[in-house]
Each structure stands twice: as C-alpha cells, then as structure tokens.
C-alpha cells in the first residue's frame, strides 16, 4: 500500500491526520465545557479521553498506509 506520493522526509499525505490531531487537542476552547455529559462525565474529560483512541487509530491507519 503505497498510493500516496512521498516527499523528501518520508512523509505522505496520510501524515495530515497527525496535524488534525494536534490542532484539535491544542485548542482548549473547543472542549472546555461541561455539556454534553457522557455517563455523568463532563465533555472536557470524555472528549479528550476519546481523542486518545482517535489518535491511536490515526497512528494505526498511518502505519498500515505508509508501511515500508
């Protein structure tokens, strides 16, 4: 699986997923709120915990998409 064009540093378009991930977690206004709660947990907490899983999934996707 090597459909994406490569640049010099071994980067591919798939790595943009990492940028999305950084942009989301580095922007506290996005998640600094109580509602909506999940199982009684304020949004601030469950949203960031959710992104732990999203980021792991992104990494796995990039791993398979760019495996060399």
């Amino acid at each position, binding site marked *: 699986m090597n459909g994406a064009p490569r640049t010099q*540093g*071994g*980067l591919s378009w798939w*790595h943009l997923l*990492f940028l999305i*991930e*950084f942009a989301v*977690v*580095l*922007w*506290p*206004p996005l998640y*600094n*709120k*109580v509602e909506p*709660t999940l*199982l*009684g*947990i*304020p949004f*601030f*907490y469950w949203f*960031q*915990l959710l*992104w*732990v*899983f999203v*980021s*792991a999934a992104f*990494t*796995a996707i*990039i*791993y398979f998409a760019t495996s*060399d």
Partner: protein
Amino acid sequence: MQQVNWVALSIFVALFGFISWLGFAAARWRKGDLDQLHEWGLGGRRFGTLITWFLVGGDIYTAYTFIAIPALAFGAGAVAFFAVPYTIMVYPLLFLAFRRLWHACHKHGYITAGDFVRGRFGNRWLALAVTVTGIVATMPYIALQLVGIQVVIGALGISGTGLAADLPLFIAFVVLAAFTYSSGLRAPASIAIVKDILIYVTAITAIIVIPLQLGGFAKIFAAIPPQKLLLAVPGSNTTGSYSGYATLALGSALALFLYPHSLTGVLSASSGHAIRRNAAMLPSYSFMLGLLALFGFFVIAAGVDKLPEYAGGFKQFGNNFAVPALLLHSFPSWFVGVAFAAIGIGALVPAAIMSIAAANLYTRNIHREFINKNPTDKQESQIAKTVSLVVKVGALVFILFVPTQYAVQLQLLGGIWIIQTLPPVMLGAYTRWFNSWALLIGWAVGTYAGTAMAVSTKLTTTFPLHVGAYTFPGYTAVYTLILNLVVATVLTPLFNAVGPRRAPIDETAAADYHA
C-alpha cells in the same frame, strides 16, 4: 499517622521480593555478554514490539506520574488533564522523528543522544551540552521516583524517627542498585511486565469500583467546585489558561522522548517496526493516565482529605498523599497491598532505566570522549555500572537530606532544560542544515533564558509573555525553545559564511534514517 497495615504490608513486601528476584534473574534473559555496553545498557537492542511496549510504558508512565497527576487534579482541578493532550501528541513524534533516530543509531551503534549528535554534527562540545543536559535533567527525576516509594511506604503505616524512618526506602534502593548493576536494562524490562500488569489491574478495578461506591460519575463531578471542573475562561487581552494548558501539553510532549531514559527505551527496540507499532499501542497507557487523573476528583467527592485518619499523611506528604489515601479508604487491605506495590515497583522501573541512561551518557560522551578515548568493552561497561550506582546514591542522598519541594522544582527546570536539546537531536534526525556552533549557542541562550524565566515566576511552569497590551501565558519550555531555534537559525548562515570552508563532518547518510 495510622497503624501499620500488616496485610497490605505483607503483600507489598512479597511482591517486592518477587520482582527483586526477577531483576537478578533477568541477567540470563535473552542472554548476552554484559561486559559490552550495548548489552548492559540497551539490552542488546533485542526487545520486540511487546517488550518495548512494557518497557517504554513502564519507563515514561512513572510512579511519580501516578501520584502527582491525580494530586494536581485534587489540588488544582481541570489543568491536570493536560496529561491527556500531552500523551496524545507524544506518539506522532515517536512514530516520525524517533523512528528515524532509531534507524541512524542502530546503523552506527549509537547508544545515547550524545553519540548521535557527535556523529551527526561532528562537534564534541555540542554533544557534551546534550549529554550534560540529559544527566542534569534526569537526576531530580530519579529523586522524584524515590518520593513515590516514600509516599506509599508512609501510607502503609510505617513511620519512625531519624534513620529508622528512612530504612525501608534505603532497602528498596539497595535492591534497585544491585539488580541494575548486575543485569542492566534487562532488569527493568522484565520487572516492567509485572509492574504494568499490577498498575492496569489497580487502575481498572478502581475506576469501576470507586465510582460505584460514590454513586456514579454524575454525583462525583457534582461534588467538584466549579472553578476546578473546567479551565478558567480567559478575560480580554489574554489567552489565559487556554494557552497555558495547550503549551504545557505541547512542551511536555516535545520534551518527553528527549529525556535519556525515554530514548534508552526507544533505542533498545529491535526494529523500526516495533517503534511504529508502539506509537499506536502506547496510548493505552495514556488512557489509563487520564482515568487516574480523575482519581483526584474521587478524593474530593469521597471527602478523604477531611477524614482524621489520613490527616497525618496529608500533613507529611501534601497532595501527593491523595491517591494512597483514596486507595486505603476504598479497598480491603490485601488490594491496597497490590496497589501500593504497583506504585512502588512503578518507581523502581523508571529509576533503574534513568540511572542506566545517565550512566550510558557519562560513559560514552564524557569518559570516552574526554578521559579515556580507547576503553576496552569491559572497561566501558564497568564504568557505566559504577556510574549507575553513583547516580542512584546521589538521588537517595538528595531525597533524604533535601526537602521534596526542591526535587519537584528541579524536575520542572529539567523539563525546560531538556527541551533545549530538541534542535540537534529531534531536528537533527531530519536535517544537517544547522551549524553546530549555532546550535550550541541556541542551546545556551535557551537554557539561560528558561532558567531566568522560571526563577522570575517563582518556579512555576507558565510564564506570562507580554506583547503590547496582550498577555500570553505559556509553558516556559515552549517559549525558550522558540528562542533557541531563532538563535540557531539566524546564526547558522552567519557562522557558515565566516567559518572554515571545509564540508561539515557527518557520519550518517540520508539512507541511514529509514528502513
């Protein structure tokens, strides 16, 4: 102080005995010639995906983390959750930059960041700067691990006066020093497996049982004062707690794998694939750390800090006593023993790796570079073993005779110092563009400015940067890293113009950085 908890203490001692045996037995695991530094200090670079997961997980999610992050949530609230975005951002860096570094180090037999910088830039003074920064930043970190052990020993009800009070810590330390000396990195790698299993069992049990005891998450969060529940919304003319939170997470993420102990864990992996796979697997620890941060809120909701039986512990250890008190309050003694053993052993694993990493640095980049240029393999590994002992004695003396607060403050400074090695190490994995003397001056300016800014803010993490009428509070490490990079970038063309015309020495080739 409460009575000695004999059941918990027995289980704690039994588990400690088991891992001590394991630490010594580890010398024979994936047997190698321990008279060679890469065998003693990197486990022969033989660890596959799973062992690397345990080792790096055991290495960077330390006992101190498990005590201090919930303590921060208990004391300061939402800001403690910066640990979550922090550990989210760490793994893309591992996946991209440190995998490249692994390839180059594997190809050239580099054991430390100093080795890499020496080979890449051909400048022993820049390598020395990276080395000294690594050792200095690691020392208080080891000391804080011993604080983790101290807190759980105190929580088991063991107290005394004078030297008797420190005896259990002293014993734990002697055991740690002995198995590190004899088995090298294989010891913490094997113990990390036990430690991580215990930590996961403790965390998962607690995150299910305690909310049930307290009547659910909704009730727990309802008990949290509003000012602790969320970040304070910034007023006009400032980015307030938002920029503080984001830069703290970013700076911590950028710094983490520059620490010698993290890099030692990475370099001991057997392949670049093992590192990339771990970048996807290690977030399971981040999730657990996020859950553990919530323990600080459980403490508030359960009102543990108000109970008279724990008043002594809080008085002695401050907020660091929050998690031990919560565990004592919520669980039967036998489980408390398991949980405390998890924290105690969780301190030994990183402490062992840190002392090995510091020893590798000294041996390779100070002793071999400046004192004895041609040691035999046996001499080299003997020096490293001895230095690992010296480093641990230093940490122990520090913890026994200097107030804990100093170790915390030094560790905070350590984060600001270690991030200054990012340009030669992490960017060095991508480019040889920078002039090595420009990097050295950038490092010096960043280190000096970071220290001065930290002192001016009375050793807190965030510095209020004033630009016109605006204030941008941010993690000092991030601001000074930017300064460091600007200096290195501006000076590079200048130095190249006036410097000698010969091509810079670079041992590595572009092809060395990937599979």
